């Protein structure tokens, strides 16, 4: 097939770009953004319903919208975009042809068909079982079928990625080791294989069960394996968005990793330990031993968390080193103050980094502590946590890199630059609000996935404290802000992709700024490295982490003794 492969040369980076890979990146990214819009709209409806003063949808529509929201954004938007990231990190970054473009299109078609089948099943109203579809609650067979098709399609895409790595190696399109971003994407792809295998192992029997061929599926077994997919798929996101952070740092600042060794080891920790997180969902279940819970929930002594904490220093550290090398050396934070805050690729990436660490990361570790989980499990604290990781972390990072993909891959000039400039702030701060207010409400006991927090129709009365109502109201307002930010993103990206001025073959896009430069820091700079600003940021993070961790042990110690 190499005979038919056509390349163009990117005027900005000098990279050889396989046009097949480029078309696939475009298709996957466009479909991803469409599902982000659909899933985001469902999310807004959910948030407006949980805003007590608005209480927008009736109960059946609320549970339907919540199921669709989870599926469309958590799975469809993110995995489609990750396919684009995988093809970018292999074919484009390595300057190679894509292995098996026909297979890649087959995978794309399966994913699209699967996503549509499941959406139709949900919209018909008989499959409002939530994204998790815990047995013995049953959805229509097509609900499971669509997810299975989607997963098979994604698996094909992952193997096209691996194939492309092999092709690039054999055809010697690069020298030495693969770039760090490709290495990180490989991490994501390896975790994806594990994830999809878990999904197949549990969803295929569940499909047969819903068709009547199997009479019983153990609910605990289902949950254990389902979360092998459900949580691990979020770890694909972590590996992918950390790669995106490095990628944006390289493209906007020419930043070089402080140490290839350290950053790659941190990714390796993800491969080795992140899959254990299924246990995070089983900490208050019957039938699991505490030994099993402690080992798994901590990713074997927090070794995967260690990986994230390392990236938390090396990503901003590499930016600081690059900025200082450029002469921004005054005080602790001149490099950060004078960073290109009006460039949405940078501002989105940096907020993603900060929110993922401070909000999503810390809350995840605290909530995943065996005993502390007792005061958080299934409260709305849980969605608070994962909106911090998956939305403020992953989605914001993916939005940020889209601002680079539009000019570089779609070859269109970005439209509505003022809107683009403000978009990461509106979306990012809105999502940070969603996360914090849901966590606040969860601490006050508010249940997740629940239509009426006043319990107006319940046989026995119960009232949450009034502060909980305030939190849910603030959550609704933050969600409106995030939805505005999401809409801004969609307006900018969709109009640029379809109506933006086409860039000439040799024309470099003028916006967002991606100053071309050679790598800034050099091999063997270990003795001279100075990153005081990053050290300060990391120290603040660490203190916040330790304090919040022990405050929650304090909260736990105040509830009824249990044994």
């Amino acid at each position, binding site marked *: 097939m190499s005979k038919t492969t056509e390349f163009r040369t990117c005027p900005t980076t000098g990279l050889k770009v396989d046009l097949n890979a480029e078309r696939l990146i475009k298709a996957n990214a466009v479909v991803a953004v469409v599902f982000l819009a659909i899933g985001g709209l469902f999310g807004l409806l959910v948030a407006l319903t949980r805003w007590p003063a608005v209480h927008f949808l009736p109960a059946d529509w609320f*549970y339907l919208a919540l199921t669709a929201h989870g599926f469309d954004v958590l799975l469809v938007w993110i995995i489609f975009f990750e396919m684009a990231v995988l093809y970018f990190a292999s074919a484009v970054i390595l300057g190679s042809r894509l292995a098996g473009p026909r297979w890649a299109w087959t995978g794309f078609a399966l994913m699209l068909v699967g996503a549509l089948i499941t959406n139709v099943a949900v919209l018909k109203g008989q499959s409002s*079982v939530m994204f998790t579809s815990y047995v*013995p*609650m049953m959805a229509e067979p097509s609900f499971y079928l669509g997810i299975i098709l989607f997963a098979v399609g994604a698996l094909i895409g992952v193997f096209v990625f691996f194939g492309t790595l092999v092709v690039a190696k054999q055809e010697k399109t*690069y020298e030495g*080791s693969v*770039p*760090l*971003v490709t290495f990180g994407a490989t991490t994501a792809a390896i975790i994806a294989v594990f994830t999809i295998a878990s999904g197949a192992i549990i969803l295929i029997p569940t499909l047969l069960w819903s068709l009547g061929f199997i009479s019983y599926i153990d*609910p*605990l077994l289902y949950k254990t394996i389902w979360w092998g997919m459900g949580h691990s798929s979020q770890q694909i996101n972590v590996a992918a968005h950390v790669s995106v952070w*490095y990628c944006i740092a*390289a*493209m906007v600042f020419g930043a070089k*990793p*402080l*140490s*290839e*060794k*350290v950053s790659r080891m941190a990714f390796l920790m993800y491969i080795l330990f992140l899959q254990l997180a299924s246990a995070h969902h089983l900490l*208050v279940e*019957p*039938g699991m*031993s*505490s030994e099993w*819970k*402690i080992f798994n929930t*901590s990713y074997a002594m*927090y070794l995967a*968390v*260690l990986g994230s*904490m390392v990236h938390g220093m090396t990503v901003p*550290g590499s930016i600081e080193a690059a900025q200082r090398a450029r002469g921004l050396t005054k005080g602790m934070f001149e490099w950060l103050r004078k960073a290109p805050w009006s460039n949405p690729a940078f501002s989105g990436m940096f907020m993603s980094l900060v929110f993922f660490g401070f909000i999503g990361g810390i809350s995840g*570790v605290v909530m995943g502590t065996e*005993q502390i989980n*007792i005061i958080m*499990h*299934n*409260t709305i604290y849980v969605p608070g946590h994962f909106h911090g990781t998956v939305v403020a972390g992953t989605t914001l990072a993916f939005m940020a890199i889209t601002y680079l993909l539009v000019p570089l891959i779609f070859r269109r000039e970005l439209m509505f630059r003022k809107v683009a400039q403000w978009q990461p702030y509106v979306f990012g701060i809105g999502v940070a609000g969603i996360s914090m207010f849901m966590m606040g409400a969860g601490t006050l*006991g508010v*249940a997740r*996935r629940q239509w009426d927090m006043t*319990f107006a129709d*319940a*046989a*026995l*009365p*119960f009232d*949450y404290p009034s502060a909980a109502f305030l939190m849910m109201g603030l959550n609704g307002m933050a969600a409106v802000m995030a939805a505005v930010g999401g809409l801004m993103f969609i307006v900018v990206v969709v109009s640029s992709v379809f109506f933006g001025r086409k860039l000439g073959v040799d024309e470099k896009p003028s916006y967002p700024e991606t100053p071309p430069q050679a*790598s800034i820091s*050099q091999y*063997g700079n*270990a003795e001279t490295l100075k990153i005081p600003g990053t050290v300060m940021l990391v120290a603040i993070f*660490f203190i916040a982490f*330790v304090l919040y*961790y022990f405050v929650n*042990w304090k909260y*736990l110690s105040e509830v*009824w003794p*249990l044994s």
Partner: protein
Amino acid sequence: MAITPPSERIWWKEPIAKIELIWIIVAFVWGLIMFFMMIYWHGAGEQNLSNEAYKITAVRFAEKAQTMIDDHTVRQENNFPVVHPPPGSDVYLIARLWQWWPILELEKDQSYRLHLSSMDWQHGFSLQPVNINIQVHPGYDMVVTVKPDQAGEYGVVCNEFCGIGHHNMVGKIYVVE
């Protein structure tokens, strides 16, 4: 750059900057502290789940609960029996669409072996405002020894989605002096 191959081919021999090394060690030690904190709490803390659980059928669990209800019901409230079991005894709470059955009346500072199981789908036992949350499965009898340390009226909210009546599934536990 992170989007180009490492500038030195032998990148794995590059010395690690001191500041990176310090952070790796600090983060690693912090991980160990958090890991051992969970183990420590099993010894020193008062809030741990026993993980005692049995396979059970819905019918058998309902029978056990009914025996308790027959023996120890003290009054009715909104068509729910209010059961006052003896301290230290086995107490059963049925989760089903969309009820927590029956209402329990416990004594302050006494221990009870609370059994939780579902008759149908999964449910979530969420004791409020204490904020104790435990997952309830069909087919499993989970035993938690509870020792209420404050008198009052407590709500039991369902916090695992269980269908269209989920938000109406509220139960009650009284703790009396």
